[in-house]
């Protein structure tokens, strides 16, 4: 049992959306097949003045509002992302400077495909639990891109969430964790390459499902939980279909997954995905509720966490915008506008 808990959380999703139909129209694909097959309707698109750092800062400011602590008390900032604006120069220092946590603190960027966000949070849990720091900020934030015309283009989106970990006044306790990691080449991008490559059908069973199911079963066995103990379950969501299939195999009903399933309406926010789903669940969960949250990062690994909501959720929840408010704030763009926003056009 860990003593560290979540003292604040915050979300951010950019304003722009592109519909599956609009992308499919350009590539002469059948939108209904994609919508049905992947359970995707539309995805978020960042504005021209946004990147994974600005998203991380917005989410972190929301987390600070809920935590109600002075930013100088944060002793560590970890930013997980696979789309940092710089190849060399940390994003975490920009985030720390922007929220006012510098200079007496540690900071680093983490990279592990879509798992870097939960890893950032786990690092903070370890440091807080050991007593090395009082508060830590873990962020998952991405503005991910798929090659134009690739299947990933329907899902790769932008968004992020931030969690402040501490011991005092937690709105949720982290009761248990379990990580499961192997070397699995399901997805990669080499230095200097603009878009990632993926192992097509290789991404499902030996990659996503093996790791998500092993970590989820592992954390239940380790902490003595059964699937029926959970009021909510959040899984990494590369599309709208995989999390529901994973839940089914674990014996967790669909209704417990839907509140944290955002990919159908905002796409796959990569490092932000599991944390944004968890934030959406915390937006509505009540004291005593038990949450299972399991991430997945290609390459490959999963972090599973069991989280128990405390009484403090009620007083903190309304201190920052909820995920649903960001999801429903939207402006649709055409494929042409999307190409401009995503800087896919070389001029």
């Amino acid at each position: 049992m860990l003593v560290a808990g979540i003292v604040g959380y915050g979300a951010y999703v950019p304003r722009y959306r592109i519909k599956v139909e609009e992308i499919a129209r350009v590539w002469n694909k059948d939108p209904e097949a994609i919508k049905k097959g992947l359970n995707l309707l539309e995805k978020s698109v960042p504005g021209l003045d946004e990147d994974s750092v600005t998203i991380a800062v917005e989410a972190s400011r929301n987390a600070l509002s809920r935590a109600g602590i002075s930013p100088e008390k944060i002793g560590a900032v970890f930013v997980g992302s696979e789309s940092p604006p710089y190849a060399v120069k940390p994003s975490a220092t920009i985030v720390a400077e922007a929220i006012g946590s510098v200079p007496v603190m540690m900071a680093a960027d983490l990279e592990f495909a879509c798992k870097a966000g939960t890893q950032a949070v786990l690092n903070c849990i370890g440091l807080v639990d050991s007593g090395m720091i009082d508060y830590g900020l873990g962020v998952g934030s991405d503005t991910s891109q798929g090659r134009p015309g690739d299947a990933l283009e329907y899902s790769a989106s932008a968004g992020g969430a931030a969690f402040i970990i501490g011991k005092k006044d937690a709105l949720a306790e982290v009761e248990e964790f379990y990580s499961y990691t192997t070397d699995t080449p399901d997805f990669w991008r080499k230095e200097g390459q603009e878009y990632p490559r993926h192992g097509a059908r290789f991404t499902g069973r030996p990659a996503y499902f093996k790791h998500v199911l092993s970590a989820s079963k592992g954390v239940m066995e380790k902490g003595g939980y059964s699937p029926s103990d959970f009021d909510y379950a959040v899984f990494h969501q590369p599309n709208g279909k995989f999390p529901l299939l994973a839940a089914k195999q674990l014996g967790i009903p669909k209704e417990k997954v839907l509140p944290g399933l955002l990919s159908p309406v905002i796409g796959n926010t990569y490092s932000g995905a599991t944390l944004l789903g968890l934030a959406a669940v915390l937006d509505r969960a009540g004291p005593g509720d038990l949450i299972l949250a399991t991430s997945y990062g290609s390459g490959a690994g999963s972090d599973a966490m069991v989280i128990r909501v405390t009484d403090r959720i009620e007083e903190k929840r309304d201190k920052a915008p909820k995920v649903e408010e960001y999801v429903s704030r939207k402006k649709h763009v055409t494929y042409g506008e999307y190409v401009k926003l995503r800087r896919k056009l070389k001029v």
Partner: protein
Amino acid sequence: MAEQGSIPLIWRRYPQRYRLEGNKCENCGTYFFPPRLVCPNCRRRGSLTKHVFSGKGVVESYTVVHVPPDEMAGQEPYVLALVRLEEGPVVTAVVTDVDPEDVKIGTRVRLAFRRISEQGESGLVCYGYKFAPEKGF
């Protein structure tokens, strides 16, 4: 605001650009942004302390920019506004995440952290404050 000048100059302004850090005169209660070295009201009797602005404000006046400076090319048309912060000072800044026709005098805004400009493909990214509508943030 559009960034100009050298890296040291940009870097020195991170506290004000990144998190709206200004100051307040403890003698007369006036807030300043950007921060002042001396309170113009109290001079030597003044006592300035650091103040991080809440970022809440109201649009007092604005213009829609159709011909932007090079480093903001592509973002036009955008709204450049005079925002009255709740503590008093007026800041000139871009209002983002909004269609220009939806900005009015009196529109309530909140602080946003954004890319302001980029010193070319390989250059520094300059981050800083913009404002976004408070309603529907």
